[in-house]
């Protein structure tokens, strides 16, 4: 049984200018110990998707439906109270981007890591701090820093603290939303090393959200491309990188500059669509150089070899 099964998840929210269809019928599964990386440009809805899973909804949410099975239980059916008590930060936790904003500047670092234990698991403060110390060491920060304030830590260290906070309650699933975006490349490599180590040691299941497709390959067992609120390709990493199917994925991979080989980089003409009024039919059609007439109708998700899924008419008939 998959650890997480998302079925037709929808999340729209209302703005002055109309309804933003941030998450539009997204489906995927993740096994225990697997990492799914969701890749897309800014505005594609990947952050909204992560928040939809952990039910941190915007105030002006309009539609929120679908099924999300965590270990077989549909957590969408739980009430707010139940979700808060049992799921959020107990079974599913999140590492936010921009660690500086995720940490409370007036609380000591150790206290912040201990907080989830106190709040979500009712642990007593002394014990929580003890566990927090352990966790902080685990993420590679000297114990001395437990009594320091966030501003006294460097960017990389703060990110490690945020990771510690996400892991302290031993959740089943950790959502990482651009966890290294503010870090320099060497520190990023260090933090990725940490995430790799923790994944191995604790058999963690990650959803890794990023705009950097190369970075995604550092953790991902499974890859998903997100475009205009929809998942348009889903495959295991080897198939995804080896033989990307969707024209957008191909172009994305093509636009990554590489150091190690001589490759001509391509760009994708046009701009990503507005989630207020996505194009009818295939949403990538306006920018796709392989568009056909049938693309005016929204393609279903085709499943090749039962594993590699792609939402593109080019693969009709290959199932």
């Amino acid at each position: 049984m998959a650890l997480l099964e998302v079925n037709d998840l929808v999340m729209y929210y209302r703005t002055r200018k109309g309804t933003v269809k941030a998450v539009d019928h997204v489906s995927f599964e993740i096994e225990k110990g697997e990492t799914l990386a969701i890749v897309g440009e800014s505005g594609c809805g990947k952050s909204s998707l992560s928040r939809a899973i952990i039910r941190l909804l915007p105030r002006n949410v309009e539609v929120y439906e679908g099924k999300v099975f965590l270990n077989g239980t549909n957590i969408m059916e739980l009430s707010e109270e139940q979700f808060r008590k049992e799921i959020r930060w107990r079974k599913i936790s999140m590492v936010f981007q921009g660690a500086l904003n995720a940490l409370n500047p007036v609380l000591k670092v150790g206290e912040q890591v201990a907080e989830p234990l106190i709040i979500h698991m009712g642990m007593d403060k002394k014990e929580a701090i003890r566990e927090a110390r352990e966790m902080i060491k685990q993420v590679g920060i000297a114990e001395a820093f437990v009594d320091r304030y966030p501003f006294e830590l460097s960017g990389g260290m703060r990110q490690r603290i945020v990771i510690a906070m996400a892991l302290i309650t031993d959740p089943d699933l950790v959502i990482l939303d651009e966890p290294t975006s503010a870090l320099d490349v060497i520190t990023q490599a260090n933090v990725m090393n940490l995430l790799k180590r923790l994944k191995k040691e604790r058999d963690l299941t990650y959803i890794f959200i990023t705009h950097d497709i190369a970075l995604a390959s550092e953790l991902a067992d499974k890859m998903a491309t997100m475009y205009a609120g929809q998942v348009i390709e889903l495959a295991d990493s080897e198939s995804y990188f080896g033989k990307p199917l969707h024209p957008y994925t191909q172009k994305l991979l093509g636009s990554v500059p590489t150091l190690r080989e001589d490759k001509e980089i391509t760009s994708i003409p046009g701009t990503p669509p507005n989630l207020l009024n996505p194009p009818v039919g295939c949403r990538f059609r306006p920018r796709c150089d392989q568009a056909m007439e049938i693309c005016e109708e929204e393609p279903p998700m085709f499943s090749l070899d039962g594993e590699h899924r792609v939402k593109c008419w080019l693969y009709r008939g290959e199932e």
Partner: protein
Amino acid sequence: MLLKVENLSKFFPMKKGIFGKTYYVRAVENVTFEIDKGESISLVGESGSGKTTLGKTILRLYDPTGGKIEFDGKDITHIPEKELKWYRKETGLVQQNPFGSMVPHFTIYKILEEPLIVNKIGTREERREIVYNILREVQLSPEEFAFKYPHMLSGGQLQRVAIARAIIMNPKLVIADEPVSMLDASVRVEILNLFEEIQEKHNMSIIYITHDLSTTRYFSDKIFIMYAGHLVERAPTKELLRNPTHPYTKALLEAIPDPDPSNRFKFREVPPGEPPSLVNPPKGCRFKPRCPLATDKCDEEPPEVEISPGHFVKCWYAQ
């Protein structure tokens, strides 16, 4: 040589308390290099490395604390601002944030016209001609864009305007400070290509400042690597990528991910820790605390050694 920089330093004073002595942030220290006419170089470093400070000091947006800057044979290190008007015409700046670099209440036309007005170039009709031409050169149709306001343009379009503004007076040197970091991956390529075209067409020297080494291959002749205020390695592009010599450069190259699914099974060998504070940097080589090759000798600032023609490394152990 168009630009000669010798032992250039820039420190920023930081007062500590009413009675405390003044501390200095030693943002750039002892940097030496030359750039020829028509050469483009990438100045690479993480945030806090001093690369932006170096760029702005070269443009005399900051006053140098020490050392010498020579442009086109003239020593411009300490010339007062009012005598630098000619220099403003010979140089151009493209900034990182496309949205913040344009005056919001000016039309695109006015934004581009300003440098001409300020430098008393052309009559009203002539300026119109120049502005329209430059818009075409950056592939923005004047009819469509000249009278729009910045908030109506996308990030990519605004950066084109920024480039247009930087080159409108046909400068000899353009400094582009992280011009694509805030743009979507698919748009970056277009902008980098635009830089390449312009550089070829006008034979301009470009200093392209970035933290992302992987974008440098595409149009720079040379790569300069900065770490914690020091210029630690500089070499022609192919040579640097083939033979990275400074331990920091090697770490940088190792740390950059490429899209390869096997990455998730490997740990990257990168030095731990983070760049030092520039208020109290380590004596001598600033990479010493993290360097696998460090010895006591490194407490003394290493000289620049030319290990092969045009390839300079600031390290005692360079070979």
